[in-house]
């Protein structure tokens, strides 16, 4: 009964949000099956190249499992590493298990019709993308044929011509991206030897002097006060982007064997959620999801927000609900579970294989 009430109220919020959003549109309404809702990036099973993007409007609790195949009649043929869109222009990062088959696919994000793609050698092992203005930045590991994660680059894509205009070298397997005010902050994969946060000036498209970190840097985003938060190993750093100085360091109690990941901000940019996970001796992934405030003196580890481990975590800026990806295994469909920011469950939606990312439109 309580569940129903919650659902009804969240639906009401969803509808009003859609209503408000539609009224705000001055241009003719965009047309398509996917104008407003939640996109889930599913990595799929690596060797089967069966990743997909699932979609559901916020008021629904069932998803269309593979909207790219539905719109284009062809599957993506790889794992989906990321999907981002702005003003109806979307880009998908597709990672195939075999060298030379990775690509960036351009779609109309309202209809999901494919418009173009860029493959090797411009794009090899794409990891994450951000769009700002008429450009997209895509972090790529490069061929990484020796599996040592030493190389990498940021591919700069002109969204009008749909071409890579520049490759900016970033060593050690570049990964997470945060854009703010003419600067692109680039983290690196924990698999490599990365120990710095790379900063790229997007006007000159050159890398400036990096910020040294203890271990691979993983930029999370900018908080309500404009401060950059970065995870490195078992620390979370608050960095002043004007001076590049680390102002605060918070420790995560990892007990030496747990790894933090999937950091994401709340809508008000005053709290950060993250997952702390580890594998037990039987190979089972265990963990929990925590929350801390940007003004907290330390991260409270005694009571997790949600006593579960997730493969993806994001907050919908429209409704403020927390979306969490569950991957039972790489050989069956996963779920997107919606939580309120106090950790109470709203519902659970079956999506594609290995949901790791969410995009809200």
């Amino acid at each position, binding site marked *: 009964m309580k569940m129903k009430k919650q659902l009804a109220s969240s639906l009401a919020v969803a509808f009003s949000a859609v209503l408000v959003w539609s009224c705000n549109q001055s241009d003719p309404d965009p047309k398509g099956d996917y104008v407003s809702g939640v996109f889930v990036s599913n990595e799929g099973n690596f060797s089967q190249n069966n990743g997909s993007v699932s979609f559901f409007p916020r008021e629904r609790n069932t998803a269309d499992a593979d909207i790219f195949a539905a719109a284009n009649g062809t599957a993506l043929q790889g794992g989906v590493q990321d999907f981002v869109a702005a003003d109806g222009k979307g880009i998908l990062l597709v990672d195939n298990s075999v*060298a030379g088959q990775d690509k960036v696919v351009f779609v109309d994000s309202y209809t999901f019709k494919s418009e173009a793609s860029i493959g090797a050698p411009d794009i090899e092992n794409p990891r994450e993308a951000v769009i700002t203005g008429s450009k997209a930045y895509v972090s790529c590991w490069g061929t990484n044929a020796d599996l040592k994660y030493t190389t990498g680059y940021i591919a700069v894509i002109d969204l009008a011509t749909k071409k890579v205009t520049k490759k900016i070298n970033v060593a050690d397997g570049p990964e997470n991206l945060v854009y703010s005010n003419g600067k692109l902050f680039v983290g690196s994969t924990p698999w490599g030897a990365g120990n710095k946060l790379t900063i790229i000036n997007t006007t000159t498209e050159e890398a400036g002097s990096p910020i040294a970190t203890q271990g691979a840097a993983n930029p999370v985003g900018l908080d309500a006060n404009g401060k950059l938060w970065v995870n490195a190993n078992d620390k979370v750093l608050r960095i002043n982007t004007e001076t590049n100085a680390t102002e605060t360091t918070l420790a995560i109690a990892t007990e030496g064997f747990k790894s933090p990941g999937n950091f994401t901000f709340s809508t008000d940019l005053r709290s950060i959620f993250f997952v702390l996970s580890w594998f037990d001796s*039987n190979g089972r992934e265990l963990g929990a999801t925590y929350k801390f405030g940007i003004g907290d003196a330390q991260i409270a580890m005694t009571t997790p927000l949600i006593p579960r481990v997730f493969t993806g975590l994001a907050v919908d800026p429209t409704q403020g609900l927390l979306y969490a990806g569950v991957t039972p295994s790489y050989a069956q469909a996963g779920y997107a579970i919606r939580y309120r920011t106090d950790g109470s469950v709203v519902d659970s939606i079956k999506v594609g294989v290995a949901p790791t990312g969410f995009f809200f439109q």
Partner: protein
Amino acid sequence: MLWASLAFSIPACAQSDSIALEPVIVRGFVPQRFMSGLKIQPIDSAVLAQARFQNISDVLSAFTPIAFRNYGPGQLSTSSFRGTSANHTAVLWNGLNINAPTLGQTDFSTIPVAGFDQLSVQYGSSASVIGSDAVGGSILLDSRASVQPFHASIGRQQESFKNHQTHADLRYTTSLNSLWSFSGKTAFYDGRMNNNYPKPFRRNYQLLPTETFQKGIVQDLFFQSKKDQEISAHVWLTDNKLILTPDEQGREMTRTTAYRTMLRYRIGTLTSRTAWVRDIIDYAKGDLSRPDHSVTDKFATRIEKDFLINIGSNLNTVSIKTGSEWTHYRSRVPGYDRSPISENRTDVFLLTRWQATSRLITSVNLRQGLVSSFNPPFTPSIGIEFNVVQKEDYKLIAKGSYGRSYRVPTLNERYWKDLGNPDIRPETGWNKEAGLEQTFKSAFGGTLRTSATFYHNRIKEWTYWNPSRNYRVENLQQVLARGLELQMSYQRQTRSWLAGLDAGYALNRSSQEKAYDNYSQDIVGKQLVFVPEHSANANAFIQYKFTRLTGQFQGSGKRYTTFDNSQFLDGYGLVNLLAETSISACKMKLLVQGQIRNVTDKFYLNVRNNAMPGRSYAVSLTFSYDSQ
């Protein structure tokens, strides 16, 4: 019973093994003799000759319901026999299991038809006769002594996509002295698949660029004495190199090399066999010059004795084969937590065959395997064949079998670093099956054989590289595979004409029965991945003198690609056409063959989600000399 009558109304199918009616001592290396009640399908030698430039999976998918999990042309191809996994098909070369001990399976893309002389497919569990791995069925490859004094042939097949295959062989036989005769075969094959596809995409799906090189040598020597002795030596060296995306920096190479050697000796009813097999797998990504190199040696020695037992003056004697096999494995694999590892396995067995009456044959077989640090279960089986109707022009045989199966864990399952489990238990299952076979001697002017077989195979402790445990191996699943096979074969011969049809349909329902965590509820009862529920095949040929025209059809229903059946590959049907003719003059023969593969240009996908090739062509010329 409804199914059975349906089976009869659709003339369905099978070739049965010939049944000796007199109690005789069975000599030599023929395990099929003790498989009464099980279905055995010998593949016609004309079919093997027709496919001499191809791989065994081409023949098996054309003539049997075995489903192949294929990664692409010239790439990994593993079997699913009667709804089981790739680990559940035993592949026997002259009676020796040649599944790679590390993986416990055979990559059928590395077994060319040129490597053996005879092929039989045995359906269902026969672990009591064959041992480990014989759970879904067995593929029996055999070498046969030549009967021609001298025969030489050389041939080449040129195929679409700049692919080509070459094959040469010599067969010889001679009498050494008044007592001993000698015969042998030396064969050589060499193939190169460049897969140079003119169009790299089909319907926006890529045809993955790959190259496969395959070469090998086969040497068989047979010495036969009139004093009931036989010595034979067999060598089969084969090498297969596959490179994915050869033009990319991150290209991947898998090289599979096998040295297979065997020595057999038989005197009267005592047979011994000793074999050494070395399996090498080299894998590299990027820099191909320094691959991960894994080597596994298998030494196997077997001794067996045949005899007859009198069980009463009014009763027929019982044929018995008893013996023992000892196998030693030694493996160096970079991924293992220690290297080298070694393991010993011993099997003791007692096989019986009793022709109780002219209509009834039974087999009772017993086997016990003994493995370092754990033992598989005691493995009995019983099989019965009953001739219901025995008329001049009509025969009806009812068959049934009930037996245990087991599978000893592979070396990878036991020793792979972190993911393997040294304490993993052997799988164990019970297979039940029943079938009817009928033969019409003069149906439509020819011979018609049909068969219908039902099976029910429950396998417990099914090991599983558990994707929800970071691919750690566990005795997790319990799988029930059940289904129905209908087969028919028809052949009609007139003075210059020969025509035939082989067709089959199989229903394979194979599902996981036990839940092991919350989300496995989505999996229980669902069809196993890459096991089509429905499959069908047909081969029709018509031959006039030395010219033969063959049409083949292979159909596969939808194949699920995830355990919860949320994703699948569409079903497809492929049609191939073959035409062959030969010209002979003074002991010499020139054989010309043309093939059109995938005639209808059918679009279908492989396991990697890449497109398979459309219509393609092959032409071959084989020149041979026969001294007779």
